[in-house]
């Protein structure tokens, strides 16, 4: 079957989709967007979290056919999404101009501006293997959108659907607190 939907603001069309395919598979294998991760494919880890019409969901549990005509935001579009949101609130440009001191890198792709939550994850040491990171970023960004001043318990509850095996979550807590603090200063 064919599925038409919007991903990170761009219309996309996927053809010859097998009816049992998940949104996650279509993103990763058909649209060249492997940022959403395939860690459990049973809704028990949150690594594939995307926003479907604004709502965080596990893309592994959305049938591809169910996204027809709908809007999806993935980790690849998170920086733009955050930028547009801050423009909407009159705080344009806060996502730009941050140097993360990660210069030396193994990759050669030009650095896109990062969203505040992405930058905070790097700065706080919340990234190790990084496989849980995309899902956590999408979930944490959405929580900070709803709740700019979360308590620790609020952060833990909002991220309780995202497993991390490397960090012991302490640096993830630090990262979200850091992003919230920076967000508070920017407004």
């Amino acid at each position, binding site marked *: 079957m064919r599925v038409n939907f919007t991903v990170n603001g761009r219309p996309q069309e996927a053809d010859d989709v097998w009816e049992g395919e998940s949104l996650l598979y279509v993103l990763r294998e058909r649209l060249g967007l492997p940022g959403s991760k395939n860690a459990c494919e049973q*809704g028990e880890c949150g690594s594939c979290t995307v926003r479907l019409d604004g709502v965080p969901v596990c893309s592994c549990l959305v*049938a591809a056919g169910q996204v027809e005509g709908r809007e999806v935001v993935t980790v690849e579009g998170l920086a733009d999404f955050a930028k547009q949101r801050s423009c909407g609130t009159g705080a344009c440009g806060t996502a730009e101009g941050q140097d993360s001191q990660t210069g030396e890198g193994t990759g050669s792709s030009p650095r896109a501006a990062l969203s505040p939550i992405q930058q905070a994850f790097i700065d706080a040491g919340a990234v190790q293997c990084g496989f849980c990171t995309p899902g956590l970023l999408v979930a944490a960004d959405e929580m900070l959108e709803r709740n700019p001043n979360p308590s620790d318990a609020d952060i833990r509850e909002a991220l309780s659907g995202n497993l991390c095996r490397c960090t012991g979550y302490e640096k993830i807590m630090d990262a979200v607190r850091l992003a919230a603090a920076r967000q508070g200063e920017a407004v």
Partner: protein
Amino acid sequence: MDFLRPASWEEALAAKAEHPTAVPIAGGTDVMVEINFDHRRPEYLLDLNRIGDLYEWEVGEESVRLGASVPYTQIMENLRAELPGLALASHTVASPQIRNRGGVGGNLGTASPAGDAHPALLAAGAEVEVESVRGSRRIPIDEFYTGVKRNALAPDELIRAVHIDKADGPQQFSKVGTRNAMVIAVCAFGLALHPGTRTVRTGIGSAAPTPVRAKAAEEFLNAALEEGGFWDNGEIITPSVAKQFADLCSAACNPIDDVRGTASYRRHAVGIMARRTLTWTWESYRGTAAHTEGVA
């Protein structure tokens, strides 16, 4: 596999009539796991996402008509006052991402004894509105669960909504899992006080082949409360009454040993939860308790 995308409820009923083996998919939180893990290859998937009616709820005089696909997140956030037991249960469902997709219709359709909504629905009193091209009917929740992962639906029927009595007294829900979030119930317990009828109702999850009520426990407690004049005098329920109620709730279980817990533990834990939720609801009824409902 074929993917059917009805744009309206009528189209969905027609599709289900034409393909009775079609598997409805709404939140996808059960169906997609089975597909991803190759446990199931239905001939037809019947997508219900486009049917807006299923995502709506109406608060009436006596009851709430809850669309089958209203996500648990919405129940938690918007129906806390009307459906406190179900709101608490909704908050224990899996993870925020799953609560954003899953709804009560899915729990009822799957009819797993571990579904989190069941004990709350049993305790509150509910009717399941189902429909086919042949017509619509309401199935009382007590008659809905017919076996392990089996329900009273005919092959051509779809779940449209659940009608749940609005709370006329305190309700509680409690669930044991071996993790503090994102966990399937080892066992669960729902309790609702109905001061209007001077009755209590219970619901037990994951401790029998189907979700069940502890009817003997309810009858015992109804009689004890009546006899002691508790509904009127608002006195503390005596420990011996609470204990017997808890023991009868344990006795209502017919659990198995499985990878999530032992049968013996399930009976034990249901008893503890029964006693605690009775204490919480009764304290709330007496109006003496300071906010003990937990967060929902």
